[in-house]
């Protein structure tokens, strides 16, 4: 059984921190005028921040060095204030290696990110 990871609401400060820590300074993630001109309500979260949440759910379960492979596909945007929950399903196990599928969901039920992963986690 893979435990859900429920995150606190995403904050604008977190987007700025993530921009700095990742080096991704696309104004879509902090400049409200820029984001609205592109058709969004305001700055949107980095897709890679959503992927990092999938990674957090995995390392919470398998340990900090346990992720061998992680793939994410970005399906819907996340805004500051959204509450994200990551859930996962075990798909296969080969010895110590486990394959999972993952998803990140907003509290309105929309799936923002779907993922697949292989982690090392001794049985």
């Amino acid at each position, binding site marked *: 059984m893979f435990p859900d990871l429920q*995150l*606190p609401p995403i904050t604008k400060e*977190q987007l700025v*921190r*993530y921009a*700095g*820590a*990742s*080096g*991704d300074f696309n104004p879509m993630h902090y400049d409200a005028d820029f984001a609205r001109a*592109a058709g969004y309500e305001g700055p949107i979260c980095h*897709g*890679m*921040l959503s*992927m*990092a*949440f999938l*990674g*957090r759910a*995995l*390392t919470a379960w398998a*340990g*900090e*060095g346990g*992720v*061998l*492979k*992680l*793939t*994410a*596909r*970005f399906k819907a945007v996340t805004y500051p204030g959204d509450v994200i929950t990551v859930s996962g399903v075990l798909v296969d196990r080969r010895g110590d290696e486990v394959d999972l599928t993952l998803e990140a969901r907003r509290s309105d039920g929309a799936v923002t990110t779907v993922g697949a992963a292989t982690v090392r986690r001794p049985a």
Partner: protein
Amino acid sequence: MPLDPSAIGRQGSVVTYDIDASEVRAFADAIGDPSAVYRDLDAARAAGHPAIPAPPTFAACRRGGDDVREGLDMDWSRILHGSEEVELRRPVYVGDRLHVSQRVADVFTKEGRSGVMDFLVLEAVAPDDAGELVYTVKRTVVVKRRPDEGAP
């Protein structure tokens, strides 16, 4: 405009990254991960690591020279992130010196319900100082064509 398939294989410059503890901590802070293993060497060693590891998606943020994009006929202001794949041979560790570069792995066009989309796949490889591969990262970005840009 559609991307020219002759761009496939084009190589960006190598960027050398010396991974330090403060950038790993800043990344863990930014993603809200409270684990002491990302912040404290004793905690990392107790968890079986030779040094402080970085969270898995940190690798995707150290991807080599952006000059791989130069000359590609793509409107970067309209770009969407389609997908990302991170494959780790081992964790990235504080103290690593990584020599990372990316190349254009693929270019293709799809026609879907919402119109014509151009796809660009960039693949980064990260060998360490000993030449051992630490990770590969594959990023797919998408630009939706404007109606006046026509079909493929």
